[in-house]
């Protein structure tokens, strides 16, 4: 084909089996609690929460992790792989301690998201999709995160750092390296005095 039109997602490959996997007692109890939200014969509905627990426990989702989830939910490993390979928030390879996701879609892009990504690349010596040599940061470019009034939006693990510029993002990385998880912020709430000026709502 002239334009090499192939489905880009088919290039996603799963990690090797990985180490043996079983939920900790605590995570197992949490999953059992979650399964109760769904009808008795619909345990499969808990596959996303179960995979989040796998990822929380070992940092990424391995084939052994998927087998464990399949056994607990009474579905096949193929069913679980099908889900893992579809959703973008599951990692099938080890990632850094902090996964830095920069929104690249329109409203962030017109406010300089590309420059923010470049600044992070320069600082860490990596390109999007890579993890830095120290294993601390993985950089990703992601699609619209849904906070376009505070563009460009950067998400670090599950915490949001909005309104970044090429100048501020270096400090953010230094701060994360120095202070670890305590440097993660929440979302800016729309409260007076705790929001970047000039955003959010009537009045």
């Amino acid at each position, binding site marked *: 084909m002239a334009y090499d039109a192939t489905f880009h997602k088919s290039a996603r490959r799963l990690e090797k089996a990985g180490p043996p996997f079983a939920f900790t007692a605590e995570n197992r109890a949490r999953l059992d609690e979650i399964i109760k939200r769904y009808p008795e014969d619909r345990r499969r509905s808990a596959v996303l929460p179960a995979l989040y627990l796998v990822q929380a426990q070992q940092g990424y989702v391995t084939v052994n992790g998927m087998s464990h989830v399949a056994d607990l939910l009474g579905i096949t490993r193929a069913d679980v792989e099908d889900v893992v390979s579809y*959703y973008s928030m599951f990692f099938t390879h080890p990632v850094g301690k902090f996964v830095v996701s920069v929104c690249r879609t*329109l409203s962030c892009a017109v406010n300089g998201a590309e420059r923010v990504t470049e600044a992070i690349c320069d600082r860490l010596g990596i390109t999007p999709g890579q993890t830095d040599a120290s294993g601390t940061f993985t950089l990703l470019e992601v699609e619209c995160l849904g906070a*376009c009034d505070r563009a460009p939006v950067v998400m670090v693990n599950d915490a949001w750092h909005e309104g970044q510029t090429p100048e501020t993002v270096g400090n953010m990385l230094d701060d994360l390296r120095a202070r670890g998880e305590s440097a993660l912020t929440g979302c800016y709430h729309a409260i007076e005095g705790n929001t970047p000026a000039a955003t959010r709502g*009537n009045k």
Partner: protein
Amino acid sequence: MTVDPVLINHVREPNAFTLDFYLAHGGYEALKKALTLAPDSIIDRVKASGLRGRGGAGFPTGMKWQFVDKKIAPRYLACNADESEPGTFKDHLLMERNPHLLIEGCAISCYAIGAKVAYIYIRGEFLHVQRVLEQAIAEAYARGFLGANILGSGFDCEVYIHRGAGAYEAGEETALLESLEGKRAQPRNKPPFPAVVGLYGKPTAVNNVETLCNIPLIVSRGADWYAALGPEKNGGPKLYCVSGHVNRPGVYEASMKVTLRELVEGYAGGVRKGRTLKAVIPGGSSVPILMPDQLDVQASFDAIQKAGSLLGSAAIVVLDDTTCMVWLAENLLHFYRHESCGKCTPCREGTDWLYKILRKIERGEGTPRDLDLLSSISANIGGKTLCAFGDAAVTPVVTTLTHFRHEYEAHILERRCTLVADWRARQQPVGV
């Protein structure tokens, strides 16, 4: 057209998300009232109010509920909190700062359609919002607004949060149900519609967050009050998300009598100093562009449709004269290419193909033949897929080709991007 906000009037106050704050401002009164009414009369009220779905399609909510087959049990309510349309962030604000309004809306809606369980499907990236919602739901259970025998009425209602994992397509109602069932978020063939065969094969109402947040207002203040807020058939308050090249991006609540000009130049403070307006996307990345001379159109479902676009999720993306329209199409097709669920071949292969051609043109490697190819591929995706994604994906291409064909031609003629904006300027020339 300014109105007193009723959905987001308290969002800036520190404790707005707590149950005590909500109760002090009349919270859960609508639920108390609803439980004294017959379920069908609530559906009638919602129909009379003219409430149209706030997720994007603008379908009348009362009618959707009426289609829910009451002969089959159990029935479900699925709240669509997968807010992923580029440019949209209104549900984000509602859930983060006014979560009890949504919970009250869920409970009343469940009562109206006779469901005992509601699932709020929230996008995976909104974990901080989810935590606020979880706490609010726990408070509501503790005070008897959710759970068994709510307020002594004999009505039971459970509300659960289901976290997505990064898929735009999960915002499509049948794909959302697939995802809730533990599968890939891919759309189902329709009909049957979810109101008849929905979650677990049972009748299900799927409603957007903002839609459900309107329900308590309709119950407590009445359908007439609600309908009178906006123009005919476009009643109620509306949240507008304004972003892009404006001075004050944000969520603004207004009547749908407001014009796009008032929203862009008034509420959002207009484009930045020294720049001029080039185009406006009025309803999220999936709708056609409107030009600066069309700004006086009323920002209602019907008026914007008449002007040749769609209100969609009311995500107004404002673009100034530094925006290259070929680049814009490339940016959005990168999005659609990434988010295509892969079920229908025209969309799966076509979005990738469109993206590659656009990237080629933007890099100055395009040929005149490519423009016809873009149109041809677009025509073979639009209307040929199971869900509206296909039509949405080709819209950025078709609309920029319609209004800005000269920019495409300039890229091809000069073999470069003719408009390198300051936010995009690199030290190095764009690589091949």
